[in-house]
């Protein structure tokens, strides 16, 4: 495994992970490339002027608050929860969350017996209509490489310790199918309104890397 001939690969992997973090600080050439592609596609009437700007507005309109609203409704309305687990996309749309792409959605319910974790090993597929764009760590190699082979150790790095008797299930996303975790409703929230519940639900809880906690400060 530590064959010297293979060191290149390890160096490469390290450079890869680091690069993804720092690369955005030198946008010059690629900024120009992106602009050129955009302008040429508009000149060829393949894209309409303003289409990119409108899509930026769509991207900016998607935040984890949408996913949190879905989760809070599922916690307070058992019929909604059942529909959500049976038909993720259709049930989110029922709540007014539009899907701006052709992706399907499966909602995975955490229980006291099963803990779900979402990853995209091949790239960075993510339930963007509900959560917005993924965090950087979700797109980087360490998370993608480790989630599928040592999810408990990875979760522990988020401070999440899953008891041995709880099964950990890892869902690997694709370009056509995305996953959202329905976290467990925390104890002590019996008197909470739907809005108060939604305020507890973080992005990371819906990826499955942390539980929802009553005293959680919204960090994501």
């Amino acid at each position, binding site marked *: 495994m530590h064959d010297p001939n293979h060191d290149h690969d390890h160096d490469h992997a390290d450079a890869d992970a680091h690069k993804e973090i720092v690369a955005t600080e030198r946008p010059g050439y690629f900024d120009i490339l992106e602009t050129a592609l*955009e*302008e040429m596609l508009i000149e060829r009437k393949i894209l309409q002027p303003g289409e990119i700007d409108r*899509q930026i507005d769509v991207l900016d309109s998607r935040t984890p608050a949408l996913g949190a609203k879905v989760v809070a409704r599922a916690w307070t309305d058992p019929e909604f929860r059942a529909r959500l687990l049976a038909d993720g996309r259709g049930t989110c749309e029922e709540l007014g969350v539009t899907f701006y792409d052709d992706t399907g959605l499966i909602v995975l319910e955490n229980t006291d017996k099963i803990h779900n974790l979402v990853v995209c090993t091949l790239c960075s597929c993510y339930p963007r209509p509900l959560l917005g764009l993924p965090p950087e760590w979700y797109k980087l190699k*360490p998370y993608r490489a480790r989630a599928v082979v040592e999810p408990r150790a990875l979760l522990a790095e988020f401070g999440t310790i899953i008891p041995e008797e709880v099964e950990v299930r890892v869902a690997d996303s694709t370009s056509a199918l995305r996953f959202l975790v329905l976290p467990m409703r925390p104890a002590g929230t019996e008197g909470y309104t739907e809005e108060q519940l939604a305020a507890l639900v973080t992005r990371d809880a819906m990826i499955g890397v942390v539980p929802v906690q009553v005293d959680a400060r919204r960090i994501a």
Partner: protein
Amino acid sequence: MIGLEDFMHRLPNDVGGQPSPAFARVEHPLAPWEKRCHALADVLDYHKLISTEEKRRGVEGLGAEVIGRLGYYERWAVAFAVLLFQKGVLTPTGLAEKMKEIEARGSAERTPADVAGA
């Protein structure tokens, strides 16, 4: 012994279970051009010109070395260019000329006039 056969087993994006650097809970907001690049990807998908899976395969087609040296959205931009060449929508010469023109304008920022007048 890990040798050439390793390259036959996995394409560059297939990192599940691979040795990896230490995990860090990294967050960073997108630069304006990165967000535009993301929006461009979505719009290309709507127009059935480049699907999400084609984009992913396009990135993979750049090869491990290029993938390793480019940032996340840099890969996307390069993959779009290559795919649009392959589909006969753009030509390398045309793109090079357009990039030169944008560089000469002194800024990659588009103005409404640029877009409207295009």
